[in-house]
Every structure is written in structure tokens, then in C-alpha cells.
């Protein structure tokens, strides 16, 4: 009863000229999203994809189990010297991500354009 995620991956370029690997998520981000979040991240070559943007604009429902998966990726990315940025959160989930402290380890941007302008 948890809706499946569709994830699309695209290569973008930040204002600094750096390559940004962007994942656009849809559906629910919950305990059932290990494939979408963690496996998708694992599918990347860590030596190539150094800057990763998670876009949650298409996500309708997000819970703490889903946020735990995001933290797991942040943890692994930090170990491999990758940077994760996050965009597309509603004001409510921007508050929630801030409350749990994710903003210490990932920058939040309103949308992809704002993220690319800063990256």
C-alpha cells in the first residue's frame, strides 16, 4: 500500500560549471523507498559523480523512515567525498529536514534552478 517511486536521473550543470547529477523522485518516500533512494545512489560511480542533487518536488508523502534513507545516503556520500544537495521540499518538509538536522550535512534549495545557481 506504499506507492512505488519513479526516479529519473539527469545530468545538469551548476553555475560554477560543475556537473550535477540530479535525481527527481515521485511517489512516497517511506520505508519502501530503499530502491529509490539508496540503490539509486549506489548505482552511481562514486569517483565520477561528486555533486548530487535530490529533487523531491514530485513527492507527495514523506515520512521519518524515508528521511532515514536520505540520512543513510548523506552518511555514505560524506565518506566518499561526494556532496548531496536537496531541493523541491515543501515549506513543511523544509522545516522537518531542518528540525532533524539534515541542513548541517546538505544544503536545501527551493527548486532545481535555485540549486544549480548555487552549485
Amino acid at each position, binding site marked *: *500500500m*506504499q*506507492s512505488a517511486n519513479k526516479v529519473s536521473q539527469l545530468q545538469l550543470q551548476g553555475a560554477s560549471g560543475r556537473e550535477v547529477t540530479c535525481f527527481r523522485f515521485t511517489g*512516497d518516500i*517511506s*520505508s*519502501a523507498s530503499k530502491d529509490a533512494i539508496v540503490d539509486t545512489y549506489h548505482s552511481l560511480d562514486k569517483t565520477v559523480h561528486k555533486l548530487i542533487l535530490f529533487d523531491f518536488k514530485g513527492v507527495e*508523502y514523506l*515520512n*521519518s*523512515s524515508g*528521511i*532515514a*534513507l536520505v*540520512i*543513510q545516503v*548523506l*552518511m555514505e556520500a*560524506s565518506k566518499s567525498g561526494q556532496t548531496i544537495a536537496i531541493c523541491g521540499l*515543501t*515549506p*513543511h518538509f523544509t*522545516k*522537518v529536514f531542518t*528540525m*532533524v*538536522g*539534515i541542513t*548541517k*550535512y546538505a544544503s536545501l534549495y527551493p527548486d532545481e534552478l535555485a540549486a544549480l545557481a548555487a552549485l
Partner: protein
Amino acid sequence: MTVSTGSKVEVRLPSRLGFEKVAMSTAAGMAKLMGFSEDRIEDLKTAVAEACINAMEHGNQMNASIPVSVVLSMKPDELEVKVMDNGVGIDKPTPAPDIDRKMAGEEETRGMGMFLIQALVDEAEWVSAANGTEDQSFVRLVIRMNKENE
């Protein structure tokens, strides 16, 4: 019971992940009826979802045939929500999540539900059936009108 039955809504869900979204809809409908603002309703929805997931997982051990019961009581200027399960309740208080410890792998990445519930509503109280005075364990949440997040 101090609440008149004329202002109480109860919803019962199977202990099956995903159904917490039905409780979120019910709670949102009730809060909208009372005139809560959109952002307060978002706070309530997340708190209710986390409370239902905990009731399903930790209380009812994911036994789909055991219902989670959510009782929404409209009171003057506040909405009280009780999320009840058939478990024994919480044995010891859980520490607030620590992102640094999580990032260092010293703490599980999960374990943020109770923290979020407390952070998003005006009152949150966990009552255990194990203590003997209640039939069921429950968490009791309150959101107040004209009151921003604490």
C-alpha cells in the same frame, strides 16, 4: 469522557504501512473543519502519520488484522488526537535523534518519529497499557488554534 460525542470522530485502520495516509486525510479533514491553517494541518498530518506507523510497527507488530484506532476530539480552540494500539507501550523515553551521531554511524539512521511528533504538535504524551490503568497504549497529541509551532 469529558468530550461530547457530538464532536468526536474515530477512524480505525489495519496495521499495514500506507494506511497511515488514510488517517492523515481524516485528521486533515477534521482540522480543516475546525479552521486550522494549512501549515498547522501539515504539522498535524506528519505527527499523525508517525504516530500511526509506530502504533502499527511497535504496538501491533505489523499484524494487519489488529486495527490502529485514531480518535479525534474537537475541543474549544484545540484538536486532540489519540492514536491507540494493542501493544504494551513505551518502556523508556527515547533520546532525541542526534544527526552528528547518525552521520558518524554511532546511532541508527531511523528513530526520528517520536521526536518529530513532539516537535510538530503543542502537546504529546505517551500512555502505556503496561501501567495498568488503560486498555490500550496510546499517544495523545494536541494542536491548538492561533498558536504557532513551539
